[in-house]
């Protein structure tokens, strides 16, 4: 389980942003891709532990799941995959590895107070 190291990375990054802006963080908004290799539940569980004894103690982690989006060469368009176990275009069944989204592990917003 590497979610604790990831959670600590999130806390460090959020603390750094908070320090630069001189604000207090109430919540961290994270984009989590289906191919990020990170398990959401384990991450949420680890987050609380990672926040302990830091200025982020008591803050929330809000996760936005990002599905895998591939480009299908046959449809000439992007398609959302329903599962990471099948890299086939859901419209025409063409195999594709042209991944456009789904690897995100990114803080995109902070809910803050002065």
């Amino acid at each position, binding site marked *: *389980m*590497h979610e604790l*190291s*990831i959670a600590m*990375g*999130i806390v460090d*990054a959020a603390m750094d*942003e908070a320090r630069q*802006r001189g*604000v207090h963080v*109430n919540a961290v*908004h*994270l984009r989590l891709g289906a*191919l*990020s*290799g*990170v398990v959401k539940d384990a991450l949420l569980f680890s987050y609380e532990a990672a926040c302990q004894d830091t200025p982020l103690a008591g803050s929330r982690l809000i996760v936005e799941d990002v599905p895998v989006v591939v480009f299908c060469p046959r449809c000439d368009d992007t398609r959302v995959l329903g599962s*990471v*176990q*099948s*890299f*086939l275009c859901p419209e025409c069944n063409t*195999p*594709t*590895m042209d991944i456009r989204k789904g690897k995100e*592990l*990114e*803080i*995109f*917003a*902070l*809910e*803050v*107070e*002065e």
Partner: protein
Amino acid sequence: MSEPRLVEVRRNVLKQNDVIARSLREQFRQAGVFVVSLVSSPGSGKTTFLEKTLTLLQPQYRVAALVGDLATENDAVRLARSKAPVKQITTGTLCHLEAAMVQNALSDWDLHHFDFLFIENVGNLVCPSSYDLGESLRLVLMSVTEGEDKPLKYPTIFNSADIAVITKNELTTAVEFDWQTARNSIESVRPGMKIFRLSAKTGEGMNDYLDFLAAQLREHRSIALK
């Protein structure tokens, strides 16, 4: 206290790792060394496979290996029998290697002395998938004893890898391993992935894989020169 408000930020959580990985990749390119990282489950035969790889490449190529392990140095001791330079990275409780660990381990090695560098990750098919180590090629290893649906159970790591090696081919009949099902599983999670079927124990099938590595090294160097 003012009202809570939302501020937009854009921060990749693994940025620090990615920055180091990029710098390692550039170092490898400049030194002309082809770097292969190995990921697999515990017990799939990673160390035997790597020992065989190092031994068979050595007459022609200069090879070295870094091995990640939670607690012991057993793997490094086994690999040292190949006479190739081997260094252990003991991760403690950490379940994966990170780019900074590779960078530290390489600090006193001159990469120009090597053609191939192998990095054996900790036996784990989950955690290593998120961490770029700067490698030129990520190899996922599984053995016939693990079942044909392993790729479907661990799609992320198979998807992130470049080639798959299925080893312990000598046990295929005993465990009734169905090759077509296994190939279909891999094709489903990673279309077009190159698959090598071999036995590290008997050496069967090793040549195709070694020829592939040699061709990759030539290509790596011709690109590096441009």
